[in-house]
C-alpha cells in the first residue's frame, strides 16, 4: 500500500561503453549523441527528485571495465574540493544542481581516464557489476530506513550487446532484485550499427515486473522516460504502461557461456549445460549415463 511516507528510491545504471557510443554516433540513420542523452536523463532525474521531497537517487556508470558511482559520491576530502566548487547560480534548486554537477564531473573523469588506453576499450559494459552496486546501495538505504517502507527501482539505459560470460552474475543479480522486490526497467537503444537484441535484459524486467522499452527515437528520450518510467511502483498498477510483449527466454550455458535454447539442466542445482556430462561441474552430482 503506498502511503505518503514511502520513500522512492531510483537507481539509474548508465551504460557508458565508449565503443558502443562511438559506433552509435557514427550511425547513418539515427546517430546518437551521448551528451544529449545524458542531458535528457538528467532532466528526468530532476523530475523524479521534484515529485517528492524524500525521493532518493543513485546513479551508477557501467563502463567497459568498471562500475562507478556517479551519485551519491563519497564525502569528498574537504581540502581538495573547497577550491574548485563552482558557486550555485541563484535560480537553480540546490538538489538538482548537486546531482547535475556530480554526474557531469564524474562522467568526464571516467571517460577521460588516462589509465587505460582508449584502444583497449572493448565493446562491452559491466552491467552485472553495476546491478550489484545498485542492489547493495538499495539494501543500505532500506536498512537505514527501517521504519518507512522504501520502494526501489532500477533503470538501465543500455546500448551494449549482452555478455554471455556474465550470464551467471547477471541472473544472480536479477533474482536478488526479485527477492527484494526491486523492479528493473530497461531502456534499450538499437540501430543498425549499435545495440542488438538483448537476451538477458528483457528477462530481467519480466522477472522483476519492470518495463522494457525499445527506444526507436532516441532524440525524444525524455518523452519516453517521463511517460513510462516516472511513475513510482505503487502507481504502476493503476496505470497501463507500455511494455515489450515478447520476451526471449534463452539462457547461456554454464560451461562455455554460449547462448543456448535447448540444453541439459542439472536436476540438483539447476545449472544449464549445452552438452551432457557425467558429473555436474557446479554441484558435483554424478548422473548415471543412459545406455
Amino acid at each position, binding site marked *: 500500500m503506498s502511503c505518503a511516507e514511502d520513500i522512492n528510491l531510483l537507481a539509474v545504471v548508465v551504460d557508458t561503453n565508449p565503443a558502443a557510443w562511438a559506433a552509435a554516433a557514427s550511425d547513418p540513420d539515427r546517430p546518437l549523441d551521448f551528451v544529449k542523452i545524458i542531458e535528457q536523463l538528467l532532466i528526468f532525474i530532476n523530475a523524479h527528485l521534484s515529485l517528492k521531497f524524500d525521493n532518493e537517487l543513485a546513479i551508477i556508470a557501467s563502463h567497459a571495465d568498471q562500475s562507478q558511482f556517479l551519485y551519491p559520491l563519497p564525502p569528498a576530502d574537504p581540502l581538495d574540493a573547497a577550491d574548485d566548487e563552482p558557486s550555485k547560480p541563484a535560480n537553480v534548486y540546490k538538489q538538482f544542481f548537486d546531482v547535475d554537477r556530480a554526474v557531469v564531473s564524474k562522467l568526464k573523469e571516467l571517460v*577521460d581516464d588516462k589509465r587505460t588506453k*582508449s584502444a583497449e576499450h*572493448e565493446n562491452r559494459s559491466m552491467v552485472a557489476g553495476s546491478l550489484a552496486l545498485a542492489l547493495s546501495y538499495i539494501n543500505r538505504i532500506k536498512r537505514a530506513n527501517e521504519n518507512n517502507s522504501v520502494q526501489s527501482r532500477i533503470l538501465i539505459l543500455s546500448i551494449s550487446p549482452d555478455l554471455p560470460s556474465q550470464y551467471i552474475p547477471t541472473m544472480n543479480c536479477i533474482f536478488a532484485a526479485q527477492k527484494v522486490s526491486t523492479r528493473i526497467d530497461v531502456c534499450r537503444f538499437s540501430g543498425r550499427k549499435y545495440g542488438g537484441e538483448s537476451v538477458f535484459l528483457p528477462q530481467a524486467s519480466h522477472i522483476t515486473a519492470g518495463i522494457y522499452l525499445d527506444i*526507436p527515437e532516441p532524440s525524444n528520450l525524455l518523452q519516453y522516460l517521463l511517460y513510462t518510467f516516472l511513475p513510482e511502483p505503487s502507481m504502476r498498477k493503476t496505470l497501463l504502461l507500455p511494455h515489450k*510483449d515478447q520476451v526471449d527466454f534463452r539462457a547461456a550455458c554454464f*560451461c562455455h557461456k554460449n547462448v543456448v535454447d535447448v540444453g541439459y539442466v542439472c536436476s540438483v542445482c539447476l545449472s544449464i549445460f549445452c552438452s551432457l556430462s557425467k558429473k555436474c561441474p*557446479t554441484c558435483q552430482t554424478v548422473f548415471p549415463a543412459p545406455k
Partner: protein
Amino acid sequence: MAAPRLQCRAQCKKQNGALFFGPKEFSWTADGKPQPDLRVPYTTVKACAQNKSEKVILKITQAAHNGSPETSHVFTFPPPNAHESRESVKAVLADVMKENTATVAASKDTAEEFQIRLEILNANAELRELHKSLVVSGVVSEDDFWASRRHYIVYQKFVRNQRRGPSGTIVDVRPQQADAGGGSAPANGSGSDMTFKFTDNVVTSLLAQFPPVRRAYDATVATGKMTKQEFFRRFVESKYYQRGRPGSNNSSTNPGAVASNEFFETYENEDDDDYALHPKKARFERRNMLLDLGAVDAESGNRPDATMRAGGVRASLPLIRQFNRVSEGVLRATTGAGAAGSGAKRGDSPAIGGVGVNTAAAPAGAKSGNDNTNNDEVPADTLYARATELEDLRIEAEADAKPLQIGDVSAYFHSAPTEGRGAGRGGDAKTLGGQMRFQAGVAAWQCSLAETKIDRAHADTVLAQLNILTRKRRRDYQRATSTAPPNKQAAALHLGAIELLRTFWTSRSEASFDEGKMAGVLAALADVGKKADALERADPACRPLLQAMRAALARAAAVST
C-alpha cells in the same frame, strides 16, 4: 551345500534306498550306489497320493517337462517309522506344491485384476481413448500400459472392497398412515390400527439406542422364543416408544403398556456382580482430558477399562478362580517370591478368558504406574501443553541459506577461454577514431540543462508508438482472461505421444532391450508425426503444441538410430 530338508529311507522299484530332499530337488539313491538314480526338481512335482493298505506307499507324480512325459514314482516306506516318514515327505511336498501354484497365481492377469482394469477404463474416458489407440492396436502391451498406472489399480481395488457400514442415523419410529385420505386421526386412537414398518435399519438403530431392548431382543427373538412381530408390538406399547406421550399409561388407549413395561423391566437391570471389580460408574478422572492412544495395557485412555470385567460370565467363575490359583502357585514355585509379590499387586487386573494376565502385565504395570504418579504431581495445564507440543507442528525457523558448493568457482564465474571475444575489439582505426571523438565530446561538454531542447518533430510519432504498445497490452490482457480451449484432437495426440515416448525411454534404460517392441514404438511415433502434420494443416492454431511434440519425436528417432 545347504542342509537337506529331509532324509529318510524308502524303497523304489523293489530296491532299498534313501530319499534325500535338497533345496531345489529331491533324489533317491539306491543302497550301495554313489549317484542318485532319480532326481526330481521341485518345480515339476505335480501331486502325491498315498494308499490305505498295510504297505506304506507314496506315489509322487511328476509333471511333463523337458521332453519327458508325465511320470509317477512309487516309494514304499519300510518299517520302523514308515507312517511318520510318509507324513514328513508329504509335508515337504505340500510346501513345494504350494510354492509351485503360488508362482502361477502371482501372475498379474487374474480375473479380478481384469475386472478392475475394465472398471477404471469405463470410468475414465480419456484413459479409455488412450488405451484403445495404443494397446488395442498392439503398440504398447497391456502390462506396460498398466505398469505406470498402478496407482489407479490400487485405488480401484480399495474402492471395491469398501463396504458401507450400518447407518448411524437415529431413526424415529412413526406409524405409517395407512389410509391417508380417509378420515382424520382418531382422537383417542384406541380403535385404530397403527401400522409400523420395522426395516433392518430401524431395528439396528433401536437396538443401539436402548440397551435393555437389545438385551431383551437377544434373549427372546435371537433365541427364537418370540417372534419379531410380538417383540416389536411390545416395544411399541412400552415406555420406550411412548416416551411419556399423552395416553401412554392410559389403559384404554394403550392396553399392553403395563405388561410390556414389565417385560422389558427384567432386562433393564444389569447384573450386580460382586465379582466385578470395576464399579458400574467407573472412576472418571476429569483432570486429564487427554487420550493416551499409545497405552497398550488395561488402563487405556482416560478411564479405566470397563469393557473387560472380571466375572462377566458368571458360569465360568469357579473355573477361572481355580485356574488363577493354580497358575499363581506354579509361577511362585518357578520364579520365586518376587513374582508372587508383583503378581499380588496386579492380581486385580481383569481376566476375562481366564488367561493369566497377572504376571505378564507386571512390567507393563510398572510403566503405567509411572504415568499415574506423574499425573498426580503435574498440573493439568502443563500436562496438556506437554502432550500437545509436537515436534512436527512447530513452525520451523527458516534455515539460513546455505551457499552453493560450487566445485570450480573460477570456471563457474569466468568464461571458458574459447569465449567469443569477437564482440568487437576496438582495435581497428575507425573505431579508435570514433572513441577519441567520443572522449573529446564528453570532455568538452558544458552541461546547461536550461538550454536543452527536445525536437518536437518526432514527439507525435513517439506518443503514437507508446499508445500502440499500451493498447496492445490491454488487448492482450483481455485476451488472456478468455482463453480458447485447446484443440481436443491435438490434446489426444499429445497424450498418445507422451505415452509412447515414456515407453520408449523406459525400455531404453532397462536392461532388457526388446528390439521388436522398440521397432513397434518407433513405427507408432512416426505415425503420430504424420497425424500431427495432417492436424496442423487443418488447424494451424495448435502449431506450438505439435512443434514441441515433433522436436521430442525427432530426438527419440535420433537416439535410436
